[in-house]
């Protein structure tokens, strides 16, 4: 391997690593706040990418049907709860938020041809279609069992994951899609060509990480999420309900997932089930961070990206094996290092 190949592989690894880092952060966030191991994280990557692709192909993305269906289901549940509690004034709001907004979105998409819209608008539309699925899935699948054990929540995650994969196949078909590059700029550094898209992925990831950092450090809602992760009872006593914290963290996780999918779809072809593997690699990063430390999780995810890219050069058949085997020494090191401190 010469320097040029090394640089090329490094560039590739960093790009993928940046995406894995975003997903690792989302996984740590969701676990810290709700104790859910969010296996369906990867599906949001695939849904984000494929929704954008079908918008660009001038098709009505299938995710709109999912949005409508989940919205109707939630409206039915919340509506009957409000009836039982005689809070009739809440019903119009429930209907508007859960059915009205998706219907409006569907109507808008049917009326205009999304393929002709400028790229930023298409990206925004794709995010609008995919991100609400996060809190909706929380409401339907996780909120009723929010107090259950981590194992039960994990089983729910597996179920949600399998369901979403099936729905993805139904909506987007078995063929993969790749969206056109956001930018055609490329730079030459020595002998290596640096693609603009690659740079964009890394810069966008860094910006998103900074935005997340500011959200958690500077805003009261961000602090409320951190507080819930630290002390659930304490947070509840301040009026920060588990439901609010869950909804908020799932919204963030869905945004991060969909955004990551949109970022990588010009680089890799995304299939309905590609998200799972991408999410799993983010998960390896999150595990390196012990599902608790954001910086270590991000660093771990970048390590995963680099390891993956270099092992694809030396032993491409064993690429995935090498990446996932990384978990074993990490877990070993973690369990040896862990001190069993009794909590107060």
């Amino acid at each position, binding site marked *: 391997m010469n320097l040029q190949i090394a640089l090329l592989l490094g560039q590739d690894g960093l790009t993928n690593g940046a995406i894995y880092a975003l997903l690792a952060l989302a996984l740590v966030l969701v676990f810290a706040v709700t104790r859910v191991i969010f296996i369906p994280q990867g599906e949001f990557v695939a849904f984000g990418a494929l929704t954008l692709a079908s918008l660009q192909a001038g098709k009505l993305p299938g995710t709109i049907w999912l949005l409508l269906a989940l919205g109707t289901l939630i409206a039915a549940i919340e509506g009957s709860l409000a009836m039982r509690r005689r809070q009739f004034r809440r019903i119009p709001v429930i209907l508007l938020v859960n059915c009205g907004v998706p219907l409006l979105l569907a109507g808008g998409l049917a009326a205009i041809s999304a393929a002709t819209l400028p790229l930023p608008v298409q990206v925004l539309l794709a995010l609008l279609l995919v991100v609400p699925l996060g809190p909706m899935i929380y409401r339907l699948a996780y909120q009723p069992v929010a107090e259950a054990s981590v194992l039960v929540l994990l089983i729910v995650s597996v179920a949600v994951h399998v369901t979403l994969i099936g729905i993805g196949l139904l909506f987007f078909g078995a063929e993969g899609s790749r969206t056109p590059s956001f930018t055609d700029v490329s730079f030459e550094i020595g002998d290596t060509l640096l693609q603009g898209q690659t740079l964009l992925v890394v810069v966008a990831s860094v910006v998103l990480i900074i935005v997340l950092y500011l959200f958690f450090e500077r805003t009261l809602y961000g*602090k409320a999420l*951190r507080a819930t992760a*630290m*002390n659930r009872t*304490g947070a*509840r006593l301040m*009026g*920060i*309900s588990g439901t609010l914290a869950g909804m908020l963290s799932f919204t963030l996780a869905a945004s991060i997932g969909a955004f990551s999918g949109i970022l990588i779809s010009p680089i890799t072809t995304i299939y309905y089930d590609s998200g799972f593997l991408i999410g799993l690699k983010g998960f390896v990063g999150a595990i390196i961070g012990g599902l608790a430390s954001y910086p270590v999780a991000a660093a771990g995810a970048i390590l995963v990206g680099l390891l993956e890219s270099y092992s694809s050069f030396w032993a491409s058949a064993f690429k995935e094996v090498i990446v996932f085997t990384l978990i074993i020494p990490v877990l070993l090191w973690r369990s040896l290092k862990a001190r069993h401190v009794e909590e107060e």
Partner: protein
Amino acid sequence: MNALDNPGEKVVVLEVSSLSVSYGKVDALHGLALKVHRGEIVTVIGPNGAGKTTLLCALIGLLPARGEIVYLGERQGSGRSVEMLVRQGMTLVPEKRELFAEMSVWDNLLLGAFDRYRAGHRDQLETIDEVFDIFPRLMERREQMAGTLSGGERQMLAMGRALMAKPRLLLLDEPSLGLAPLVIKEIFRTITQLKKLGVAILLVEQNARAALQVADYGYVLETGELSLEGPSRQLLTDPRVIESYLGLGGRH
């Protein structure tokens, strides 16, 4: 502030009757009745395991309870939740403090105003100044992580954080627990100060003497039932209370 304007009129903040709480088949509380007025400190004293913490947890909605709870003139239905009660101005300072250990004192206090902020009140900075007036020590420690505070400071922070919600009813669970006598004195002095702000306080304590000295009215809770009640001055001289809870000065 109406109650303070006409001290003759007593506004009932909380009225509980035939309250029962059970853990599975075990009755932890049975047929309790008590009342708290605005601007009044009411204490519930009793030995370990009498159900004092259970009572407060049931009142704030952390535990399911049977019986009638009327808060601010409204009967609490089965749909009541911690979040709803917090929104209506009930705040609990729990026995374990439940602080956000890895956050600064300042952030802990800010989060105390979370629900008010969410409801559209953006006066948290003024409220923080008011809390710093009551607990100047918190002002000095504002950058420090809550987990590094001393026991007394933690209790102050827990109370300050609760005050950030501008409560109408403050539930205090064993504020003296694990604190040095001098610190206890300071905490109880603050509790009497809070009364002047017009907050109704329900104080649950094992330290019966200290609690009865600051309270207006007292209840004695024994194995899940109220055995005695009366104005606290009266309870302080009641031979049954002296025998079981106060002891004679020289006896121990």
